[in-house]
């Protein structure tokens, strides 16, 4: 199937077994099922260890979100921005030193607008405790109608919960801005933007982030995405899965996130609002199941529990906590058949809708 991984620095690529593709595929099937109106609520997967499984699911969700082209950021003309809007301002591409920098973005709530004949100045607010800032945009830089990514600033209306932050690193903001080698054609830039700027919150994972981030650092080759769409030879799993963190948003896209168990959002906070946008949540490992399976915020989401039967601790507590909420829904008798999905040998799964 052509999915290969390796540690950065290793010479040899390793072709991953069918199990990896299986989880990748499960995510795509679940995304697809949701699109067609199948609302699964809980899925429990019994597997030896969850290492690389939630990243595989994230890869599948990332690809599905891209392939379906679901985009929640809506174009907004400079003149249409109103106080109260949550907007994303996206800069133009910069090309220098042989590299093209993918446009950076600022996301904030518009709290006031001042206008001049040539420009509009937005006062943007971010999270509590962070000072408001001003962004002045000239009509010249953001003309009405179709805009050219190579020279125009674009403004988008983004859904509530989209992480608010400035476009510049520093003062507690850690941004990761991608650069790709030149030449990059206009159509390639548009493809890259659809990938790197997609606003389509999909899959949130809670678990042991160190291990997930370690998996994320692996170099990865997906023939379809890397070979066919982005024309990259390889990428990290973290980038390919379009992962970010809930508490510290670093990337322009808003697709998949991972977070520590202890950072599960408290209700009525901005982070809870952000998590509210994700239809799929993964509780990765027994500790996550024990601690989070009964969280009220998860009530209406599709929660995928990765029950690590290869780890002796917390097995029964993890299962019983998960079942407490899962059994409030109706059990799906033939989940695998319904999804047309075959789990890896020895791996079992159960579903509720």
């Amino acid at each position, binding site marked *: 199937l052509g999915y290969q991984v390796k540690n950065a620095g290793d010479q040899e690529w*390793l072709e991953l077994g069918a199990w990896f593709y299986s989880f990748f595929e499960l995510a795509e099937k679940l995304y697809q099922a949701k699109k067609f109106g199948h609302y699964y609520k809980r899925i429990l997967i019994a597997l*030896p260890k969850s290492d690389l499984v939630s990243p595989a699911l994230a890869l599948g969700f990332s690809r599905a979100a891209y392939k379906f082209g679901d985009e929640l950021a809506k174009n907004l003309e400079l003149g249409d921005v109103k106080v109260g809007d949550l907007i994303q301002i996206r800069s133009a591409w910069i090309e220098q030193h042989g590299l093209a920098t993918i446009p950076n973005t600022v996301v904030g709530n518009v709290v006031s607008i001042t206008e001049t004949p040539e420009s509009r100045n937005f006062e943007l607010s971010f999270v509590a405790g962070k000072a408001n800032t001003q962004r002045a945009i000239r009509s010249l830089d953001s003309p009405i109608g179709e805009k050219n990514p190579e020279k125009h600033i674009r403004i988008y209306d983004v859904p509530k919960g989209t992480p608010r932050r400035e476009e510049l690193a520093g003062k507690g903001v850690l941004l990761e801005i991608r650069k790709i080698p030149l030449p990059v054609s206009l159509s390639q830039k548009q493809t890259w933007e659809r990938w790197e700027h997609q606003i389509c919150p999909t899959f949130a994972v809670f678990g042991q982030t160190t291990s997930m981030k370690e998996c994320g650092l692996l170099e990865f080759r997906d023939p379809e995405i890397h070979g066919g769409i982005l024309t990259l030879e390889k990428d990290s799993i973290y980038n390919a899965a379009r992962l970010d963190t809930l508490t510290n948003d670093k990337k322009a896209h808003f697709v998949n996130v991972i977070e520590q168990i202890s950072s599960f959002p408290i209700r009525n906070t901005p982070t809870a609002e952000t998590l509210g946008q994700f239809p799929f949540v993964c509780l990765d490992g027994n500790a996550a199941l024990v601690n989070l399976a009964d969280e009220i915020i998860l009530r209406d989401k599709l929660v995928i529990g990765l029950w690590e039967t290869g780890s002796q601790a917390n097995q029964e507590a993890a299962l019983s906590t998960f079942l407490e909420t899962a059994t409030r829904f109706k059990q799906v008798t033939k989940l695998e058949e319904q999804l047309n999905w075959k789990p890896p040998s020895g791996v079992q799964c159960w579903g509720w809708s």
Partner: protein
Amino acid sequence: MDITSIEGRFTKLGNLWAENGIQVNLFEDKSRASSFELLTNLFRLLDNTSEIFDQLKLTLSHLHWDLRGFVGTSKDSSSRWGESEVKLKTELARVKNNLPLEAQEIAVRLLESLTLLKNEDSSYSQKLESQLLGDDHIILVTEKPRLSGAVSNFVDSLDTSNFVSVISLSTLVRFEVPNGSKVIILAAPRKISNNFMRVLALGAPVGSLTFIAPNWLAGMTPQKITQDLASGLPGVKKPIMRVSGPIFSHEMTAKEVEQFEETYLLSQEQSYKKYSSHGDVKCRLLHLAGGFVMPIEIGATRISVLAQNAYGNLEVKSKKPFTDLENGDIIFDLRNGVDDTFLTELAEARMGVNFAEYSHIRGIMKKRLKQIIQENGRQATIEKLLRSKVSTARYVDDWLNNQDFTTLRSKADWHNLLVFLKFSAAEVKRFEDLGTELRSTLISIGASARLQMAESVSARELEMVLEGQIVTKKLDDYGDADFVIGLVTGIDDNESLCEQDDIRKVMEG
């Protein structure tokens, strides 16, 4: 990141579920079957409401484990059953007046059966020996850690050319079994706890495994996994086991013994040891919320604390206990000293052949030290050691009695001790290297436990700790070991005393 290990885990799972992934080799052992039946009958007749039988029950419980899984040389075997006989006799004499007549009669027959075992008990060892041929690396797995020593001695007594490791079941389910190893579990499948069987059948630490068990222990349907692997979930699939050997004619159970163990041992585990100022190790007491204390060794330079970073994520930080630690800091550690054994077993599993070599030299070291004490007396030996610049010589008893002894903390002391014990320069160097490897493996295991701790604490648990409660946690990769997380409420300025084993253990204040 070890990608092949992750890949391997799913391959192992697939192999285990294939035909012949799990095999059960049964054998007859009429002598032990008879003893076991008598034991369970006697146990059933003991009054459940009276504590007077608790010690007897404990003795029977140990005996029950030996009958299930003890394998030893004929000398060890004779001595084990002899000891059991004496111990049982003593316990029976103590409660004789409270024993019903029927129980007394069975007890006499049980003692007789132990005498027979003392003279002849070779079925298990013969069966095991027949399985140790042909494979380069064999891992023998005992149900309980206390059975491992005798099995190791037995294997050592055989003239096998292959490398045999002996570990307990709790270690098997936690470590990565090297490819190509043959894993033999000395137990009947149905006797494995739900938790362990779930790990074996669904978690696949190994790609194939063999159970060896006397047929009386394996029941009448040994091919079936009877454990509830996923309580509350319908339609759980289980792998099929292939059975060879004679199947027993009737069911024998030991429910009463197992239930007693569960309740009695659980009540023992749940209590914290009470701190008393007995002992000769100087320490300072760290006070924790809830009235607990943790003795910290004088000269300690680091202690791990959990702290929240700017984004609310938990991180592990290191602090100097006597200068930087503050009230309100959150510390964590293993709950009690018994759990140290599991750390050593994990290290053993990770070090493989090197641990076997280390263990061999450690045996020689202890033997030589004991010999010197026998010849010169304890005090004279300590004085000699001190003259040989082993400054911590007064702890000589701890070195000898601690089953999990690693090395002396001071490198100079360690070197001087080995020289004192007349190891050659090359041997000293090798033992120092192996000791260093063991210590760094233990440190690495501890470090990964700390990281896992930071990532498995929930916001609710953190809140409980901040409210002054002690929270105990199990970590996914550390089996049954309990870790405690507690809030620091004070650090004594004055020195106290404690036992060596009490250092860094949470205790009742």
